[in-house]
């Protein structure tokens, strides 16, 4: 028997580990009735597995659980077990490496393998963060780091390292992540087995990781996304893909856009997965959110993207809005759904349904305090509601275009100002500002308002003062 799940250890309490999540992650990997665990004893649970399935993933798990490994690292064969610590983001190794949004498989201390000096024990110690928010390179994209990692996938990746540590066949590890070292390439290849298996179980197309790139970055929508779930029931639908494409190639590839999404993801994924859970229990809610929030929100952002094209006029913007509305009674239904959403947001606690009361509380505590959520997900829907009311009342494209322009001009310059502005050089500030202006702040009034907010917040930073003062002088000179 070779695999244990840590439930307690010297120096930490049960609050510092998450064996429950660890067991769930292993169970998801196995997806087999023969998988289980004994009751905790001596601070750990023995993992058991009597396979009834014969897939690649199940075979690997069977080997890891049911083999007594006796590798010889140079001083004779020794029995080595796998000890899994499923834990919090607080784990740090002796060299200072943080395991937040990461995982590692440390070889036994006497093995002489990479990482062995950081393991005090003679077992293979696998530690991973059970609250992952990390993006890795998507296969077939030339290195786009936009593929989310889930807990079971991270755990299976580390179990792949464990497999070679226990067989003393660890491949070369290098410090570069692009190209990935042979060892990481092998672990990613194994990880893709699980990704394929998970996708097949759900009947969707597998999203695979590029085995040649081991780089990644924090800030990925690895949790359940309400918008994607409601809009399309799939993370790989054309609708969601096109929006992701805009997000990643239009916004996130700028410093400001990237940092905006980092903070936005941080706030959004503090409540989105729980909302998904509530939606799973309350099917009506999903339908309501589709017309009362998600569709209008997606429409709004598409119009904002279209608005950044120089050819767009007030008239054509209004026409774009009208074109996107369903006909007659459906437009009224959308308006009513939006009205219900906005009413619910303002007095959600009054709902009799306990799940919806739970949702209201969740939004009150996690979503509403975030200026990122308010700006990106709430205000747009309010604007949309005012416009659809006009549309239903028979207003023409010009009138709607004028109102849209007025509303956007008030909303856009209130975009949250992230801390990353303070760390940019003057040239970068100028470039980023030019991007924000071309994408969102088309009028002089909008630009002045945003510049004023930037100055109020970070005017003491040299680069920002330099750029804003330069622009001010240019403006005075021109006038």
């Amino acid at each position, binding site marked *: 028997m070779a695999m244990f799940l840590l439930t307690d250890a*010297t*120096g930490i*309490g049960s609050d510092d580990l998450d064996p429950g999540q660890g067991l769930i992650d292993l169970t998801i990997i196995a997806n087999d009735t023969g998988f289980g665990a004994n009751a905790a004893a001596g601070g750990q649970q023995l993992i058991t597995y009597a396979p009834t399935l014969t897939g690649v993933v199940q075979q690997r798990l069977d080997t890891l659980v049911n083999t007594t490994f006796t590798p010889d690292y140079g001083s004779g064969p020794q029995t080595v077990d796998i000890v899994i610590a499923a834990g*919090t*983001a*607080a*784990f*740090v*190794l*002796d*060299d*200072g*490496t*943080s395991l937040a*949004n*990461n*995982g*590692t*498989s440390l*070889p036994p*201390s006497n093995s002489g393998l*990479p*990482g062995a*000096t*950081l393991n*005090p*024990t*003679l*077992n293979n110690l696998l530690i991973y963060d059970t*609250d992952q928010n*990390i993006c890795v390179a998507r296969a077939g994209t030339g290195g786009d780091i936009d593929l989310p990692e889930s807990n079971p996938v991270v755990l299976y*990746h*580390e179990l792949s390292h464990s497999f070679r540590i226990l067989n003393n066949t660890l491949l070369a*590890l290098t*410090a570069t*992540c692009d190209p990935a070292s042979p060892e990481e390439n092998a*672990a990613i290849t194994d990880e893709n087995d699980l990704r394929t298996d998970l996708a097949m179980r759900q009947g969707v197309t597998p999203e695979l990781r590029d085995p040649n790139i*081991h*780089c*990644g*970055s*924090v800030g990925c929508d690895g949790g359940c996304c309400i918008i994607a779930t409601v809009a399309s029931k799939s993370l790989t639908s054309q609708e969601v893909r096109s929006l992701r494409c805009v997000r990643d190639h239009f916004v996130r590839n700028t410093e400001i856009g990237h940092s905006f999404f980092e903070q936005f993801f*941080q706030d959004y*994924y*503090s409540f989105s997965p729980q909302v998904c859970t509530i939606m799973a229990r309350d099917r009506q809610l999903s339908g309501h959110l589709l017309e009362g929030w998600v569709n209008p929100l997606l429409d709004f952002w598409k119009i904002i993207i279209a608005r950044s094209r120089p050819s767009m006029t007030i008239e054509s913007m209004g026409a774009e809005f009208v074109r996107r509305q369903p006909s007659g009674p459906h437009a009224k239904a959308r308006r009513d759904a939006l009205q219900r959403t906005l009413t619910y947001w303002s007095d959600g606690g009054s709902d009799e349904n306990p799940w919806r009361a739970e949702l209201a509380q969740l939004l009150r505590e*996690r*979503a509403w*305090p975030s200026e990122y*959520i308010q700006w990106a997900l709430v205000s747009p829907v309010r604007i949309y509601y005012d416009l659809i009311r006009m549309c239903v009342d028979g207003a023409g494209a010009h009138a709607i275009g004028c109102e849209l322009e007025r509303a956007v001009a008030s909303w856009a310059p209130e975009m949250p100002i992230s*801390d990353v502005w*303070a*760390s*940019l*050089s*003057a*040239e970068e500030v100028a470039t980023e500002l030019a991007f924000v202006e071309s994408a969102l702040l088309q009028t002089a009034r909008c630009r002045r308002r945003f510049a004023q907010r930037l100055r109020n917040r970070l005017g003491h*930073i*040299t*680069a920002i003062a*330099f750029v804003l003062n330069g622009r001010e002088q240019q403006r005075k000179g021109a006038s």
Partner: protein
Amino acid sequence: MKKDDVKSSDLQATIQSVEPVTGATARKRMEVVVRLSNKSKRALHYISDMRAMRYDPLAKRLVIALSDEGREILPLNVEKVPVIRHIDPQSDAEIRISVPERIIKLPSQTPGGKLAFEKHDMAEMQEVVVEVGWADVPFYKDTRPRKAEASRKMPAALWEQHKVRTTFRMPKSGAPKTE
């Protein structure tokens, strides 16, 4: 062309504040605000994200390393590439570093080789040290075949020319002191 001689003192750092963060995020944390000043006549390039954190419980000192020096190569799920920014000549910049409210450290040596952890509450720390690795050139991938010694070092550790270090004593009462 006139050569800009860069000295190790050209990039200076001061910790402005260390404060707990409250808000919409799920993870509780502390935020360390660091001010960087480039005193030289050329742009300098620095690592702007935390690469390692080391806590000394006896001194109650947390060292936050924006540097890959001393880090080992491990089997990891993902290698996070350092975020490298540049700071203009005679300019300053500010970075914010997020630190968890507690750290659970796996010591590399424990009595009898038994599995044991150390839990440290960051509210108890008395001193915060921030180290920032920097160079006068941007980070470029070294595409040469690597010698054995170099291949054991993180790429950013090979790139780094200097390290600026700043210390912040947590206030018992009165104003905090930065060195």
